[in-house]
Each structure stands twice: as C-alpha cells, then as structure tokens.
C-alpha cells in the first residue's frame, strides 16, 4: 500500500498512542547510541521492545528499529549486538546507515528486512540501487534535500520503496555527514547519537532574554515573545560581518500536507513523522492529523485540501517560527 504512515516512538506509551491513532508502523531505538535520539531515559530496553512488537503485531501494524548511527571501531560489537537483538525480537525492519553494518546484517540474518536510513545520505537512484545490489535493501529514506521532481526521478529508476519525511524538525540536511556539534562538544551526532548532548546544554533566563549555550558557546538569545528552538549549533544566531542572524539555518519545521496528492501520484511508499524525542501528547496529536490526511488523499486525491484545523494543530507543535515545504518545493526548479 502506498503512503504508509510511519510514526515516532520514544517510549511504550508513545508507541501505543501511535498505533491506537492509526500509524501503519512505528519506529523506535534501543537505549544507547546505536540510534540518533540517544537521550537519557528515552527509547526501549529489550523487554519493552518485545512488548511494543506484540502490541503492534496484534493490531496488524509494524515496528521498525532505527540503528542509524555510525559504529566506531572500539564499539563495533554494540551495533552488531543491536542487529542480533533486532533479528531475535522479530523487528519488521532495521533502518541502517552504515554499509559495514548492512553487510553484517545480510550475512548473519538474511531474513531481516533492511531499510536505508536518511543518515545514509543516498540522494540519487544510482546510490539507492547500489545498496540494493549489495545488501538487498527494501526501502530507502531520502534525505530532505531533493525537490519532488528529483524524488520522482529516483522512484522511476529503482525497485526500492521510497520513504519521505512528511513532518517535524528539520536539520541542515547534511544527514549522516554532519560534524557541526563536535566543534563545541567533541561529539559528533553520527557517532554519539545526539546533536547536542544534554549534559552540554545550558538554558539561562536573563534580563536580555532566554539564552541557550552548548558547552559554554552562546547559541541563541530569545526575546520575550520569540518562539524558542532546540539548542543546536546549526540553528543558532551568530554575529557574522557585523550582523546577528541565523547564519546557518533558521529553526523551522517541515510540513508537507499540501504535497500529499503529488506524493501519492509519484508512488511514495511511506511518510515518516519526525520526533522520537517528543512526548506521547505530540505523537497522539500528529498521528491523528496525518492519519486523517492520508485517508482523505487516498479517497480522493483531486479534491484533497488540508483543512485549516489540521494545519493549526501541526503549527502548534512545531519548532521555530513557521513551517516549510522544505526542499520538496522549489518553484525555480
């Protein structure tokens, strides 16, 4: 079925909310840095993962496991151990970024379904097909750098199912290759599993505004009525050439409700919702809206129009000042 709804789950409570409100699949991570949301107290131990799988499978839904950080030589076995556990638990797929880990998975667990993570940074059908030929990947999550015509071109030239991000926080879109936070913290997102390790983050309410710092480096100062964002280096405001502004990227959220008819037409397999770090309330709200929208577009793509109520609900949940269609929509292309 095209346009499966894939929702984030940082806990069992969130997983159940996603399933109850209509996700076709959820994605989760284990409780360590083998996934890119390695926050303290978040994610699933083995027993919780087993319970989550049971809950989803009893209702005919699927569970995908994000193993999307890059193993380091001295801790390689942590990642291979996670692949083994995923296979033993009966995960419906593992979402991998590292080619070495894919090779391990194919050799040790040939029955395990592999998805190429957005962190794998495959933006062309040649790259996607290479992963298909070597590791038999079934699906690829495309980085958020392509316009829809470019996405369509990938879909047309591959058998691999294509999954796109539909909603949630955006990043500077050098997915899988970003080293930015390591300049402040010594830890890069792709090996440590977080952009800004919480132990390095400091918030201070000052007379001049709310300040966020990463390991002492001032990232931003929010005025009284300004919306705040996540404390990441890429979304900070910096003084460049005598001007203080978002020198790298403005904090905005992706929202592609408007593009659903085109995504359906192109043959997109699944829409991914960002936010494993968010709470069950977010998962509930966002799943409800996207379930309704996907059902509506499948019923009649020609007359589909996102309702103002859906947009208002999603805007409320967003990081930053506004939402955007991201790279998908480039009128100048």
């Amino acid at each position, binding site marked *: 079925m095209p346009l499966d709804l894939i929702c984030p789950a*940082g*806990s*069992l*409570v*969130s997983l159940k909310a996603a399933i109850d409100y209509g996700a076709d699949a959820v994605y989760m991570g284990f409780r360590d840095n083998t996934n890119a949301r390695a*926050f*303290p*107290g*978040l994610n699933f131990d083995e027993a919780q993962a087993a319970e989550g799988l049971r809950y989803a499978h009893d209702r005919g839904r699927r569970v995908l496991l994000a193993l999307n950080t890059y193993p380091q030589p001295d801790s390689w076995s942590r990642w291979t151990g996670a692949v083994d556990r995923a296979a033993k638990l009966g995960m419906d797929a593992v979402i991998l970024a590292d080619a070495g880990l894919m090779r391990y998975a194919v050799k040790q667990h040939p029955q395990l379904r592999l998805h190429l993570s957005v962190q794998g940074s495959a933006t062309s059908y040649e790259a996607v097909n290479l992963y298909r030929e070597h590791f038999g990947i079934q699906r690829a999550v495309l980085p958020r750098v392509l316009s829809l015509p470019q996405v369509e071109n990938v879909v047309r030239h591959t058998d691999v199912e294509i999954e796109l991000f539909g909603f949630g926080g955006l990043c500077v879109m050098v997915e899988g290759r970003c080293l930015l936070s390591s300049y402040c913290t010594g830890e890069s997102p792709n090996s440590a599993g977080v952009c800004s*390790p*919480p*132990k390095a*983050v*400091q*918030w*201070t*309410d000052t007379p001049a505004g*709310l300040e966020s710092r990463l390991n002492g480096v001032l990232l931003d100062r*929010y005025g*009284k*009525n*300004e*919306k*705040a*964002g996540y404390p990441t280096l890429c979304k900070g405001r910096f003084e460049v050439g005598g001007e203080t502004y978002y020198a790298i990227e403005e904090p905005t959220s992706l929202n592609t409700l408007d593009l659903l008819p085109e995504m359906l037409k192109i043959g997109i397999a699944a829409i991914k919702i960002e936010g494993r*770090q*968010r*709470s*069950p*309330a*977010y998962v*509930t*709200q966002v799943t409800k809206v996207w379930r309704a929208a996907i059902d509506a577009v499948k019923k009649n793509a020609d007359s589909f129009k996102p309702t103002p109520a859906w947009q208002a609900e999603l805007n*409320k*949940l*967003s*990081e*930053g000042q506004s939402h955007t269609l991201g790279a998908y929509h480039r009128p100048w292309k």
Partner: protein
Amino acid sequence: MLNFVFPAPLAKLVTQLPVAPPSRVFSMLANRLLWPALKTLDWQPLVGRRYAIRVKDLGFSLRFTVTQHGFAPIRGAPDLTISATARDFLLLLSRREDPDTLFFSRRLVSEGDTELGLTIKNLLDALDPESVLHHLPKPLADAAQRLMGA
C-alpha cells in the same frame, strides 16, 4: 482546550504562604497519591538531586528531592527548576500538551541541569497513565480521567 484558571482569591491566599509549607504539603500528597505508581520507575539517576517546580501565576515554588522512599521537601538552591503556569502544568500532567511544544512557545522554562530535566521528562513519559489512575482514590481518578479525556 482546558479552560482552567486558578480562582483569584484562592491564588492570592496561596501566594501569601511561605515556601516551606507548599513544599511540605506537596511532598506529603505526592507520596500518598502518586508514589505507589511512581516507585515502579527507575529513579536511580534522580535520587538525591534537588528540584523546584515554580508555579508562575500562583507565585510559589515546590522544592523537593527524591529518595528511595519518595519525595522529601528541601530548602536552598535546586539543581533543576521548571517554571510554568498552573494551567500548563495541568496540561502536561494530563498529557494534553507536549513539553517541547510548551517549551518552543516559551510557556515552559527549564533552568539548571538540562540532562536531569530530560531524564525526568523521559521517565515520566514512559509511565503508563493507567497505572497512576489505578492507585488514585476514586474521586481523584475520575477527575484526572475527565482532565485527560475531552
């Protein structure tokens, strides 16, 4: 949307209380009503740290620590302070709003040890609300359910 505004005369009365009694009352009530459900969680990383919940519109702070046996009131500087209005705290408790949403819109402020704050958020998010309701006295459980419903 939850239509909740703390009644003004009551708010005025509460703001006139010194810090210690609200903290003591909070710890006592939380231990009686919530700890039976909360004690199943892994509190190890949070034990012995000092917390303050600042209810902005009512002008008081609840200061407490967590021990192996529940909450205990404290005085002095906390490691972590969470500030919001009474209404927003209720929205969070009833899982009607996501803390990040309130944070982006500046309705929730976390100061001090960020890692500690995230650990608590994730610990409480993982708590099955049914298990809390199950331990509450019936009138309170009914009220909580009404708050979470709607």
